[in-house]
């Protein structure tokens, strides 16, 4: 069957087809490299019509497919499926329409995130979601993962900025979800499609909202003796009613790595804060004074406001390079993406330090401190027997800790392949089964990125039973919502 299937695929996408084992290996994993599966083939359609034909063929032949953008995902969301194909959206890379008066851009899924801002910058606009990989990741990938970034504290996530989508559903039908105007009558389908990690179909066209670039952007760097004192300053800033565009925090290990990699000029300290304010000049200037005061009150040893755009960029470069910089101080590392209620930061940091000591492994911490999104980086050496296993265990412990304090296992990287077993730690079985109802409506045959997000594949005809409380809930340790 494979040979015939490949032949039919070729008739649909012509030279946009990869079948040689050597070339297929490029697609065997995404940014999470410890899971690898070589796909049967990779199709590179150039039009929405071709995407639709390829999906139709998959539906007809019952072949699983995995959509892929730039493959920068960190949870294995674009990991191929054994015996399935990968549909790369790289060739659907056109910005189709700019509508500046209405602040809308319509783009194909393969358009690079940063290209949207580049395109609208001459008009004084920007596209707000800014994952650290924005110079390479695609809009389609951002849609799948509901990508965030440092600035989502103020501006929201990808889902806030996607108004409408044209999508190919797993049965091969092409549908319009939402639209260019708000509140299209009917269910909020863009709301459920964005962040579905490629399990509900493939977006072929995305209508985005762009934002007017603020008059002023100011970035402050403040050095504290520990992440806990830096965290106290963050709480104080937020409590005073200031909503910064971004608040980032790095611990000493992360600072060292970033310095080694990009020489951002960070002070050597226990907890570094990066606070960015934007908006009308008069407002930003007054609020920045308040932020400085709060930092001083919490004994910041150094407070520095970037004096030029170049200086600001260097500060951000260090932060954006933080993950990759870990390579400078450790042969291997696992990035986590847990979220906690911001106020539990001191408790969680102490517990991470304890877990790290028990495991005998270093943990570097980089956070979006404003919204409690932690990125603990568990450092290890794969060459030392058993260390990878210990690192995975520690990483899992940290996620459980996040759930225990009322948080989430993922703030922006997605569940993917990596964290699906942790979904049961966060949600009770009826919750998961209810989510699967959506899957059954979109993809009853489980062809679109099967095996991701959920610990089990649902039987779509099956209806869920009555509510059974989660054990953690019965013991009063947690409430789930």
């Amino acid at each position, binding site marked *: 069957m494979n040979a015939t299937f490949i032949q039919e695929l070729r008739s649909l996408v012509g030279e946009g087809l990869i079948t040689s084992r050597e070339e297929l290996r490029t697609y065997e994993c995404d940014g999470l490299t410890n899971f690898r599966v070589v796909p049967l083939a990779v199709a590179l359609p150039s039009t929405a019509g071709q995407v639709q034909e390829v999906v139709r063929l998959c539906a007809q032949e019952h072949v699983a497919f995995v959509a892929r953008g730039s493959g920068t995902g960190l949870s294995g969301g674009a990991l191929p499926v054994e015996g399935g194909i990968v549909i790369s959206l790289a060739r659907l890379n056109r910005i189709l329409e700019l509508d500046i008066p209405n602040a809308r851009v319509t783009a194909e899924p393969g358009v690079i995130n940063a290209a949207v801002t580049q395109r609208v910058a001459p008009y004084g606009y920007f596209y707000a979601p800014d994952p650290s990989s924005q110079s390479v990741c695609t809009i389609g990938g951002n849609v799948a993962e509901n990508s965030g970034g440092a600035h989502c504290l103020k501006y929201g996530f990808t889902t806030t900025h996607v108004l409408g989508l044209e999508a190919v559903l797993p049965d091969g039908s092409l549908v319009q979800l939402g639209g260019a105007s708000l509140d299209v009558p009917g269910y909020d389908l863009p709301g459920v499609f964005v962040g579905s990690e490629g399990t509900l179909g493939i977006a072929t066209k995305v209508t985005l909202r762009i934002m007017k670039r603020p008059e002023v952007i100011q970035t402050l760097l403040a050095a504290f003796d520990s992440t806990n004192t830096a965290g106290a300053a963050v709480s104080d800033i937020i409590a005073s009613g200031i*909503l910064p565009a971004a608040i980032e925090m790095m611990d000493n290990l992360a600072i060292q790595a970033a310095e080694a990699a990009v020489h951002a000029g960070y002070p050597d300290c226990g907890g570094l804060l990066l606070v960015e304010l934007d908006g009308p000049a008069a407002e930003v200037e007054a*609020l920045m004074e308040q932020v400085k005061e709060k930092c001083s009150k919490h004994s910041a040893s150094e407070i520095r406001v970037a004096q030029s755009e170049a200086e600001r960029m260097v500060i951000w470069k260090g932060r954006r390079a933080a993950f990759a910089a870990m390579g400078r101080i450790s042969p291997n590392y696992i990035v986590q993406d847990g979220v906690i209620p911001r106020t539990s930061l001191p408790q969680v940091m102490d517990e991470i330090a304890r877990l790290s000591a028990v495991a005998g492994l270093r943990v570097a911490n980089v956070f979006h401190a404003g919204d409690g999104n932690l990125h603990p980086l568990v450092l290890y050496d794969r060459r030392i027997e058993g260390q990878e296993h210990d690192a995975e265990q520690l990483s899992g412990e940290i996620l459980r800790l996040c759930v225990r304090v009322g948080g989430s296992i993922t703030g922006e990287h997605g569940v993917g392949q990596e964290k699906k077993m942790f979904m049961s730690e966060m949600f009770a079985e009826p919750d998961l089964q209810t989510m699967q109802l959506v899957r059954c409506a979109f993809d009853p045959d489980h062809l679109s990125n099967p095996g991701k997000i959920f610990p089990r594949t649902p039987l779509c005809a099956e209806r869920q039973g009555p509510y059974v409380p989660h054990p953690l809930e019965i013991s009063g340790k947690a409430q789930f919502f």
Partner: protein
Amino acid sequence: MAELKSAKSAQALRAIVVEGVLRQGCLTDAVCCVVPELYAEPAGEAELAQALKFAAEAGMQVAPRGGSTKLSWGTAPQAVDLVVSTAKLNQIIEHAPGDMTITVEAGATIEQVQRALAPHGQRLALDPLWPGNSTVGGVIATNDSGALRLRYGGVRDLIIGITVALPDGTIAKSGGKVVKNVAGYDLPKLMCGALGTLGIITRAVFRLHPLPETSQSLSFSFTNRESANQFMLSITDSIVVPTGLQMRTEASGVVEADVRLEGIAAGVVAQAEIVRRLAGEAKPLEPAGDPWQARERLFETAGSPTICKLSMLPNQLASTAEFVREALSVDAEWSFVTQSTGLCWLRVDAGTQVPGFISSLRSFMAPADGTVVLLEAPGVMRQELDVWGEAGSALPLMKRIKEQFDPHGILNRGRFVGGI
């Protein structure tokens, strides 16, 4: 439903709704003019889920209800056997001021939530209609939003977690208590605007925003609609970040625009300066009454109006208003509140012209992605009117979602888009 069957159901329900209220339905319980057989006010989430499960098994048609402020919205259902009210689920479960989140039961009113938050200098940045009566669950189900939408987004952008009771008695949670969370499908968003057709919302979690230090509104009178629309576009294209921006216009020819600025005093003063400059020749004015209540006033003025929610691109406001003027006869009364998000509310008092007018308005707006949804209409006219308009290519998918959540079609059947 036959009387005997109804009596039996009432008896069985009485065994379930033990702590809460169960009574015969009456005229004031009517959903789109359809009077229900029974009315239940379960005492809590578990009782509500059990009542719903019983209703599903007995094949009863159920209409969920919050504060009864929008019971006339949607297509009239064929029949309503049971109204399930969330009136007794009205507790604020947890406000975490440091985390800026709140967990509330669906029956709590918006005003109740705001009252709990204000002493902490926080608010739910949502200004739906009738906050004193409208409930959290009702606002989610109807996706109602006001002028704050421009700056803070709608219900979908503020909700971070939800608990829903499904017809089979399942109580399911999705989302969480943290603002940033991508674990699993985003069911809170799916429930926004679903008009109670997928489940009954029992709880929700929201992200909060600080109350602004100061707030200032500026209003201007324009000689024509096009220049008011241009003024609005020039504001959104400027460095000003308003928390409200709208044009109010009506048959009489009045064209007024309002801008609301919030934040710290220094910022508000500086932005107000820019707003005045952008207003150019337009005449500053003191509007009669709070301009941000204009949307609510459309519903409250006497008469037998048709009221619609329109959605369009922000640069279509003036041309749509002009179309309304041209399409209606000169003696027709109409009043239009248009927000710069493209969401608008139109009130028309024009008798029998209305059905024809609505369909021509839809045809006019469709090419630029505009939509018209009917909210209120005189009873006699309701049968003639298509409340939702064309459902689009995703209707089959929406029906499949409905079938998955509510396989027997007991929740608000026929009241939603495309007969869902």
